[in-house]
């Protein structure tokens, strides 16, 4: 069977707004949902849709990403044909500086795109946690005769800049614009995932690059809207866009609802991640756990409410954790209390310490810190 689609992913983006969470890593390798990294959702969606030729463009701090992906085996992407290709910055001899935008980034991998036997390219950021069937996206793309299909979902503009879409009944996009001000009104929001014919993408990128343009949305999509062949594809169900600390916290906490978990995890298409061979989680005799998502390898002897625990977290006797996210290898010691916090990997809260943020302003504790 001929490969129909390939994918090019951008591992970086919005690192500055994710503050301490992305000091050591790309947005793509940001831990999310108890045992995943953000990129797992995109990779799994692609693999589940039969897309197995995936290039990942990195910008900086990509060692955590390389360590996570390795040869791609955990997503069944260790292939003879296709599989994963990671592009560090400076792939071209001619590139003297790290790319500024998606256009010059794509320009550096044009040869990779051209060489692929696929006719369509999925261009995507890695900060989306959703369960998307790209075979359906392609079907709609072909049916509408679109040049570009823009994936979107219904949501509101919160704390970060979002692409807001206006479309007609047939899905044809009439207007695209960026909105930055928080507004509770429900709108169609772009997910930064696009499906484009390969040859068309190559010509867009070559032309834009020749003119020194950098922004894929502003410099290509906005201009093409007038031609009437840019269509929207609405992803039904929950789709999380993570682009700052606030959205990270809020989208994580949504996973405590059974609806969000069902949409993300309980479909036929599974979400894969790096296998770590952790043991199952152990619950002690004095633990109290309510409304929490808990990964393998934890040891829980204290109280945990409305929280997400990643792998190998230890909650000691008398410790109380509420409304928090504790990443891998975290330890909350005896009688310590934590509320509204995001603790990065291997953080230790010492015995008796107390820390609390607020629901609208969760505190972030940097990797490896001992408090």
């Amino acid at each position, binding site marked *: 069977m001929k490969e129909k689609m390939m994918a090019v992913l951008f591992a970086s983006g919005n690192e500055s707004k994710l503050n301490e969470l992305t000091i050591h890593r790309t947005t793509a390798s940001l831990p999310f*949902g108890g045992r995943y990294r953000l990129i797992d959702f995109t990779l799994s969606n692609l693999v589940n849709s039969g897309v197995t030729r995936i290039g990942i463009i990195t910008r900086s701090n990509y060692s955590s990403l390389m360590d996570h992906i390795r040869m791609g085996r955990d997503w069944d992407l260790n292939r003879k044909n296709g599989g994963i290709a990671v592009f560090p910055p400076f792939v071209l001899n001619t590139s003297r500086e790290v790319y500024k935008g998606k256009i010059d980034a794509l320009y550096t991998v044009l040869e990779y795109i051209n060489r692929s036997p696929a006719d369509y390219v999925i261009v995507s950021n890695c900060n989306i946690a959703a369960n998307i069937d790209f075979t359906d996206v392609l079907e709609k793309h072909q049916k509408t005769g679109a040049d570009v299909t823009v994936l979107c979902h219904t949501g509101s503009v919160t704390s970060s800049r979002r692409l807001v879409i206006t479309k007609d009944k047939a899905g044809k996009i009439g207007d695209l614009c960026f909105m930055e001000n928080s507004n509770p009104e429900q709108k169609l929001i772009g997910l930064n995932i696009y499906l484009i014919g390969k040859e068309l993408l190559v010509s867009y990128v070559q032309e834009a690059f020749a003119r020194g343009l950098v922004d894929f949305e502003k410099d290509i999509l906005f201009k093409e809207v007038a031609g009437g062949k840019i269509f929207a594809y609405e992803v039904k169900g929950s789709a999380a866009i993570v682009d700052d600390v606030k959205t990270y916290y809020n989208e994580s906490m949504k996973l405590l609802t059974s609806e969000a978990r069902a949409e993300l995890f309980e479909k036929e298409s599974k979400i894969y991640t790096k296998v770590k061979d952790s043991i199952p989680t152990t619950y*002690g005799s004095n633990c109290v756990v309510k409304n929490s998502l808990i990964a*393998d390898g934890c040891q829980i002897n204290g109280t945990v409410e409305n929280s997400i625990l990643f792998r190998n977290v230890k909650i000691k006797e008398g410790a109380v954790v509420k409304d928090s996210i504790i990443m891998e290898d975290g330890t909350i010691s005896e009688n310590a209390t934590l509320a509204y916090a995001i603790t990065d990997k291997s953080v230790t809260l010492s015995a008796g310490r107390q820390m609390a943020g607020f629901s609208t302003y969760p505190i972030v504790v940097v990797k490896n810190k001992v408090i």
Partner: protein
Amino acid sequence: MLTKKECVAMLLAGGQGTRLGALTENVAKPAVPFGGKYRIIDFTLSNTINSGIDTIGVLTQYQPFELNQYIGNGQPWDLDRLDGGAFVLPPYQKAKSGEWYKGTANAIYQNIDFIDRYKAEYVLILSGDHIYKMNYAKMLSAHKAKKASCTIAVLDVPLENASRFGIMNTKPNGTIYEFEEKPKNPKSTKASMGIYIFTWEKLKKFLIEDEKNKESSNDFGKNIIPNMLNAGELMMSFDFRGYWKDVGTISSLWEANMDILDSQSGINLADRDWKIYARNAAEPPHFIGDFAQIKNSIISEGCNINGTVVNSVIFTGVDVERGAFIKDSIVMPNSKILRGAELNHSIVGWGATVGEGARVGEALSQAVNGEWDIATVGPEVEVKPGEKVKAGAMFTGGK
């Protein structure tokens, strides 16, 4: 040309495991789920790779499909090697003959060519139905140092239990002078763990001789070991200290799972230097709801827990609804325990459903003659709402 391998492991995984009833009706015993996210065979496979032995033949016969699929290319155990790795070896048709594995020794006899291909000097014989952690490399060093023909791992068992095992009678230096299968009046408490290292050249000779004897049951314990002893070969015992359990019965399978909950039992799965590997199920983290109460239990990925779970082992992808009560029980993958159902001292097989208000098993205070009266619900069976499954029963829903 294949690279020479000093030691090749042969894992006997063909046992039917009839004493596990419905649990082994459609899968071989080594493929039975264990400890929340493992299969029984994961322990032996992980021990092998952790001991630095990277070539392992898995001899299957009874209900091999599940096991074949589970082992696959051996990748979860890091056994997908260019050279060596994991091989599933079912009986096969040869030019002159073709037959089932008649006994443990015959299974190895039929795969002499496999071992010869790697020019192995030593062969490690393992069985796939024990729960333990052991470094076989130490046993191999002892075997080589003593220049033995055969080294047998032994466990010191309580004298009152010794008559249930194959007992090795040894001299103070560890040399075995006599082997007694299930002796009425045991002279020693050194029980064979079914783990043997043979110098391949010797074993091969005895296997070929044994095969010629039509009366032989082609079994290591009954034939090969006694024959080697009679022939005056140097047979050594190798003392193993640590947790070891044969999970051949419902009661012992239940006990071994309960041992994981007991930090004093010695089966520490959290040891990062001796990881037990398993094929991964790609499930999300488990979710604990507002009505859950959990005490002294282990819970695996993909579960949704909203009931009470006490002293229990909950495997991958299990749903426990609000108001369900689970105590001293093990619930295998993808089972559903519905509202108001109550489990006590029971094992629920994979994919089973315990209906609303059903009761499985009874609260027991002690084992009788060493056996617990554990109630078992077979795999993919439904216990109807309100139905009762008695202590010690094997419920198959009429299947």
